[in-house]
């Protein structure tokens, strides 16, 4: 288990990394939805 003295650094590293990824992903999906709303019925090559 985590040694107490260093736990803050380890948890902080994981917390910052995951938060950054989640925030970026959420922003990306929100952008996709916003753009899609302006393009109803648009052909999307990947679909």
């Amino acid at each position, binding site marked *: *288990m*985590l*040694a107490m*003295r*260093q*736990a803050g*650094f*380890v*948890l*902080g*590293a*994981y917390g*910052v*990394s*995951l938060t*950054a*990824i989640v925030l*970026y*992903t959420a922003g*990306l*999906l929100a*952008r*996709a*939805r916003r*753009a*899609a*709303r*302006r*393009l*109803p*019925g*648009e052909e*999307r*090559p*990947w*679909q």
Partner: protein
Amino acid sequence: MNTTAPTAATDNASNASAAAPVRDKRPTSTRFTQVLGVIVLAGFAWLVVFGLLLSPDDSEQRSLVRIMYVHVPSAWLAYLAFVVTGVASAAYLWRRSRNLQWDRLAGASAEVGILFMAITLVTGSLWGRPTWGTYWTWDSRLTTTAFLFVTYIGYLAVRGLGGSHHQRARRSAVMALLAVLEVPLVHFSVRWWRPLHQGQTVEAQKIDGLMLFSLFVGLVAFTLLYVWLVLHRMRVALLDDEVDDRGLDAALAARRAEG
């Protein structure tokens, strides 16, 4: 740019979203990215569980070795992302067709690379503070990484300067190739400047099989996350470009009606 056509577009959107709610809820998803996403989630779940709970402490680094499961893969993928940006930029300029997909790949990869590089820098600092007693040291590897980070932020700023899609693509492709020239120059000058390496990272040390396995899981998880993010980012970029073109059609109609 689409200020001229908002009303018509949103009206249609509300009608269409009733007909195809899933389509507009996850417009950039495909079966492939969904499966990929599940694997990424599983990989990260394992990484967190193992990294925070199961991993044995390293004999020298103690529990700090846990940071490495995030730090090392994100650093690798950040470098890979910038390589992809360079290759895609060269491909855009090289091919006579001037396919904008290459430009979108370059931009998407750079953006994700910056995200990963930020993670690398932060986790590295948080590892360095208890290990070296300092958040930052002017070691050649750290310094080069920091320069890389700033350089690609500048690259994204250039991408945002405006102009037509192809103007953006051409200008930013040249910028990306300049960055490719700059990186080795910075790297070697910094290395000469500060030739001493600090004792670094887990690679050099004795690590047991499970730790190696977790590092591998981290690498796979970050690689798949990179692919997932770049795919979505490219699709968003394509949608944004389409929005621009669609806005242009509406604006054209309005413009023609002027006369």
